[in-house]
């Protein structure tokens, strides 16, 4: 493979990662506040269909993306209402919504199948795009890809370096303490769940208006991406930067699968495309295993230097969920 093709391939990895970045960041925001939005797989499909349909109807790409955000926010609002106000299981409500939104997308999207739509144009950043290698790699994309670069550090700074972000961590980690500190826990949870949903809602339109332009119903190849994004959120340890690295790693592995395909004729392409999953399970295992009791117990038997080494390795990989993830808060 020559360098130009390699560069274009890697640039493609960044572009295909963009929708997943928004999905994973949206979920991270929501889960940081203590609410799991399990509806993501349905949300991605419904917003992809909705964004495409709105763009076809209005002829405006902006309305398509806004529609995606609105749909994502509404679905998240249902999750928030069911779990915060009505105190039902977040997992149950989210899972049902994942299925409803998926079927709804196929049902409503039926007349839009295979229709010609608009595609978000590429916009070579003036100046930056002319830099050799880096220009082609990073700055020959469309505006949503650039936004996907920006939202990663922005979210990180918001969560870890601002006062409201500290409150966000508080309502997800120890809601009772945040409440004592004067936070309206449930109102903030509503806010961040809906905000996360709106961010997530950009993922679908990026697929249907850019990365995989068009709406092709069940063969759009979008079913399952939301579940992948959920797994990457966990892998990312509720940290936007680590989550983004997970997304890029995943997109890179999928691309690698496609590239290696011709040299491995015995393996069908469908298998290589799902190759990242066993890896994902392994990393989830590595991320979580440090939290289990038996590991702590077995480590205790080891001689001190070895124990310290293992403990340090496990700690480096470990990620613990926000303390109050998935549990409703009651101020009474």
């Amino acid at each position: 493979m020559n360098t130009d093709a390699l560069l274009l391939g890697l640039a493609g990895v960044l572009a295909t990662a963009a929708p997943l970045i928004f999905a994973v960041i949206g979920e991270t925001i929501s889960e940081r506040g203590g609410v799991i939005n399990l509806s993501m797989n349905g949300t991605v499909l419904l917003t992809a269909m909705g964004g495409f349909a709105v763009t076809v109807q209005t002829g405006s790409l902006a309305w398509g993306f806004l529609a995606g955000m609105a749909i994502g926010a509404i679905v998240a609002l249902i999750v928030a209402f069911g779990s915060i106000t009505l105190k039902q299981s977040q997992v149950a409500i989210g899972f049902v919504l994942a299925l409803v939104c998926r079927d709804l997308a196929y049902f409503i999207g039926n007349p839009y199948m295979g229709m010609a739509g608009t595609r978000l144009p590429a916009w070579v950043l003036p100046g930056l795009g002319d830099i050799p290698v880096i220009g082609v790699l990073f700055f020959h994309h469309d505006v949503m890809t650039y936004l996907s670069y920006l939202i990663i550090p922005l979210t990180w700074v918001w969560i870890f370096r601002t006062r409201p972000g500290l409150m966000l961590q508080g309502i997800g980690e120890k809601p009772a303490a945040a409440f004592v500190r004067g936070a309206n826990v449930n109102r903030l949870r509503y806010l961040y769940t809906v905000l996360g949903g709106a961010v997530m809602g950009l993922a679908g339109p990026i697929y249907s208006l850019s990365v995989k332009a068009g709406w092709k119903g069940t063969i759009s190849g979008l079913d399952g991406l939301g579940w992948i994004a959920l797994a990457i959120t966990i892998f990312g340890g509720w940290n936007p930067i680590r989550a983004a690295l997970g997304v890029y790693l995943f997109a890179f592995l999928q691309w690698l699968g496609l590239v290696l395909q011709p040299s491995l004729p015995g393996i069908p392409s469908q298998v290589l495309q799902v190759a990242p999953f066993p890896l994902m399970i392994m990393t989830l295992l590595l991320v979580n295993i440090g939290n289990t009791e038996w590991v702590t117990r077995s480590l205790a038997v080891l001689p001190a230097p070895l124990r310290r080494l293992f403990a340090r390795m496990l700690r480096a990989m470990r990620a613990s969920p926000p303390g109050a993830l998935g549990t409703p808060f009651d101020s009474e």
Partner: protein
Amino acid sequence: MKKRRWIDALFQLSALVLALGCTTLILLAADAPPWQAYKNIFLGSVGSFKKFSDVLVSFVPLLLVTSGLLLTFSAGLWNIGVEGQITLGAIATTWMLRLLQDSNLAPGLIITAAMLAGMLGGAIWAGLAGALKTYGGVNEIFGGLGLNFVATALTLWLIFGPWKRPGIGSMSGTEPFPDSLWLPMLTGLRLSPWAVGLGVFFIIVVYFLLRGTYFGLRIKAVGKNIKAAYLLGIPTTRYLMLAFILGGSLAGLTGAMQVTAVYHRLIPSISSGYGFLGLLVAMLVNYQAIWVAPIALFFAALNIGSIQLPIILKLDSTLSGVLQGVLVLFVLLAEGVRQQITRRKGGTL
């Protein structure tokens, strides 16, 4: 007590009405005639004996997989990996059938061995998710999801690789098995009485297991409060694993049914989404075994009835999925509203 039951029924009824109302609005938004759509679903499912037998064909896997899910739900587990467990059951069944199809064993024996292999396949896949959960600290939802994708990849690899049809592999699946290896069916129908019998048998087994045995009581104790159960001396890890393995073996049997009674070969989407649909059924019946059969029958009728929609009304058949999901959603929300009202009145309701 009696008043309370009335109020519960009222809430459930209002959930049903709201779900129908919501689906009707969606139909109107899609420029489709709602009454026509419902009528076609109804006639498409119970309009003739043949159609109703098709409903039963779809009812069996749903019943089996939901019975298995009741076990994992009772242990407080969200077994989203159930789709993969069905798939692995189907793979193991196909493997056993391929292994024995040229032997001179009696067909009945081969089918039995294949079904047992299917149960084992599902149990192993569920056991993996269980081990990841209990020993690896990986939440069963995410471990299960990952394993679902791996199971799909495995199926595709087998269909296009080692088990491909003579000539070239295709999405239509592996070479069909000879009719002697099919689960015997009623003449002229796709329905196998054996399949129905097994489905009904296992939901009854699960009902009694959860209701009348020490084992069921302990599994429920683990599900309600795992720490308390542990302090009471229940080996919680073992019970969690058992719930996974037993639930997985029923999911595996579902896959075995798909191979021996429905498709007679391995196809890429062999689980047909029954796993996720089973999760919906289990939620709708509030995890009570007694209601699984009627609700599963209702869902199966919606599935089969909606097959008519694309042909007659040019609507997508996923309407049934929308109706099923919206119904479960409203039942969950109605239950939440009921609980809030009860609490505010100080538990007098």
